[in-house]
């Protein structure tokens, strides 16, 4: 029992970081119906940038987010402008899948050339510290990572609910044609949305690098998790992504202690199959927009 509770604590903490990564995927999908398969690679890129800033300049990984966030935002806007916007409308959905996959490959290739394929970790002074709460072990970095994720997600929620940009985003998610007719500049919003999605990956990446060792190929582990999360939550739903990330984070963590760590990734697939059988639109997905 003690082990299971410990696993739940770990699961919630890691679920928060998954939620942050997945929120970018689901936001981008909601705005432009593009599945960003490169999100995992973006996370790893963020992890490497933060690693470099830490080892070369001694900048704390949590502080480095302030630097790499804007850089990756610009990268996202650039990728959208050059590649995604130029897709032809007829085949945009399937081609966008391939474009983002190609982007993931390019990132993996560049990172392997620059950093080699050895595993790295960002290890700040507090990396090994942990608190003990009622007999349970709570690592400091994981709590910081969780808090950071919650803060960024809350910021995103406010951005979407309270600002002019957020209203434009929601208008496009609900009905792209009407939004355009009402004067929303869909291209600009999509570009900014893509940039925002990538910068969540940057933030999550900086944190990921502190919690887990990573190499350029690590994005493969991440992407199937992230995609399962957004399908479970319902493509395009931010709330869904957060709930699904927590659910899967906790389940994965429980399976890891009760069965074996090697079977933990399986949880995602089993949940995915169950979802497809019983509720193909996901927990919070809307059925009417269909064509998934």
């Amino acid at each position, binding site marked *: 029992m003690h082990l299971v509770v410990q696993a739940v604590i770990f699961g919630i903490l890691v679920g928060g970081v998954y939620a942050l990564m997945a929120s970018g995927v689901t936001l981008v999908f909601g705005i432009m119906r593009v599945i960003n*398969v490169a999100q995992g690679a973006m996370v790893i890129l963020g992890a490497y940038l933060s690693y470099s800033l830490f080892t070369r300049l001694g900048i704390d990984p949590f502080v480095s987010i302030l630097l790499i966030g804007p850089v990756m935002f610009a990268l996202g806007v650039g990728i959208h402008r050059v590649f995604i916007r130029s897709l032809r409308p007829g085949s945009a*959905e399937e081609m966008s899948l391939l474009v983002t996959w*190609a982007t993931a490959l*390019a990132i993996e290739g560049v990172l392997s050339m620059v950093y080699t394929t050895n595993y790295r970790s960002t290890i700040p002074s507090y990396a090994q510290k942990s608190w003990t709460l009622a007999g349970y072990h709570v690592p400091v970095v994981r709590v910081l990572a969780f808090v950071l994720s919650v803060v960024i997600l809350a910021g995103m929620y406010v951005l979407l609910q309270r600002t002019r940009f957020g209203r434009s985003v929601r208008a496009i998610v609900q009905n792209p044609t009407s939004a355009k007719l009402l004067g929303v500049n869909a291209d600009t919003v999509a570009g900014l949305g893509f940039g925002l999605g990538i910068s969540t990956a940057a933030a999550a990446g900086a944190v990921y690098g502190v919690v887990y060792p990573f190499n350029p190929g690590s994005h493969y582990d991440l992407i199937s998790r992230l995609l399962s999360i957004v399908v479970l939550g319902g493509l395009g739903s931010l709330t869904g992504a957060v709930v699904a990330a927590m659910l899967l984070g906790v389940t994965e963590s429980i399976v890891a202690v009760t069965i074996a760590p090697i079977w933990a990734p*399986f949880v995602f*697939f089993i949940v995915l199959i169950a979802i*497809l059988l019983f509720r193909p639109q996901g927990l919070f997905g809307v*059925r009417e927009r269909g064509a998934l």
Partner: protein
Amino acid sequence: VSRTSTLGLARAAVIFGGLLAFPFLFPQPWLVNMAFFVLMYAALAQAWNVLGGYSGYVSLGHAAFFGLGAYAEAILFSHIDIGSPGYLPFLVLPAIGVGVALMSVPIAWVALRTRALTFAIVTLTLLFVVQTLAFNLRWLTNGSQGLSVPSPSFFPYERPYYLCVLGIFALATLVSWQVRRDKLGLVLLAIRDDEDKALGLGAHVSVAKVTAFGISVGLTAMVGGVWAYYLGFIYPQFAIDPLVTIGTVLAVFLGGSGTVWGPALGAFILVPTQQWLAYEYGTSQVYLIAYAAVFLIIIILLPQGILPSIQEARRRRRGGGTGRAERVPAAAAVRTPST
């Protein structure tokens, strides 16, 4: 027999005749080895095209079935003898193909409950699941230690493998051509253009999708089997490798998705280029970047692929029509509730 199909038959005879003669005209091992991989990707691309090209359901998980075929071959022949000189592993390939195709039916049935984008996600996840299984089911797959397949006493060593993969490539091309002419092909193309309308018109879309999936992954598994036998040693991360899917999909889109010869053409261009890059730049990851670059170039400059672009240009030069009708934009198609 119409004039076009006579021409088509002649074209096929020349291509396959040439390929058959190749290892006898150019017996250098390195050339035959490279040709093996070219044909391997050509066969994979043809197989992928039956589902992905015709129906528009982009599968990112075909490497999982490639790996299943490879492991089926390796597991089988770590228990039984390959005979002398060792043709038995070739002879069981059809059985592996049929077995994997049948096994894929329930998977396809679940995966194809989703529409294109989610389908891509599900198949991508499937790839990692099969890879995890290959790592974890140690009693069967020997985990990360890998499995070895006994090596035969062929001379010259590469030629039988080459001829076998050529046979699979020919089979895949024949199947792809037959599907395209058949009613199945029409249903698949209708699904690609507008699945809801196809369903409304009474086409058996589910049956067509599952059938195409079975054919596609069965052929893929056969290629995996001969690959495992050729390499003689397989590991989970190489037998079930996202790069195999990527190379395949890239070849299909480069040559022309949904055409009979396009995928093969793509493989004939892509694989030698990749091998040259690997040779020129060693084992570094340059070819990853090159793959990505080719991908992006195709998407921006040749969104339809080489073959359809050539056909369109030719038709335009002859005057008259504006070429093939553009596909109905998805955004313009009426969005109706999914099944």
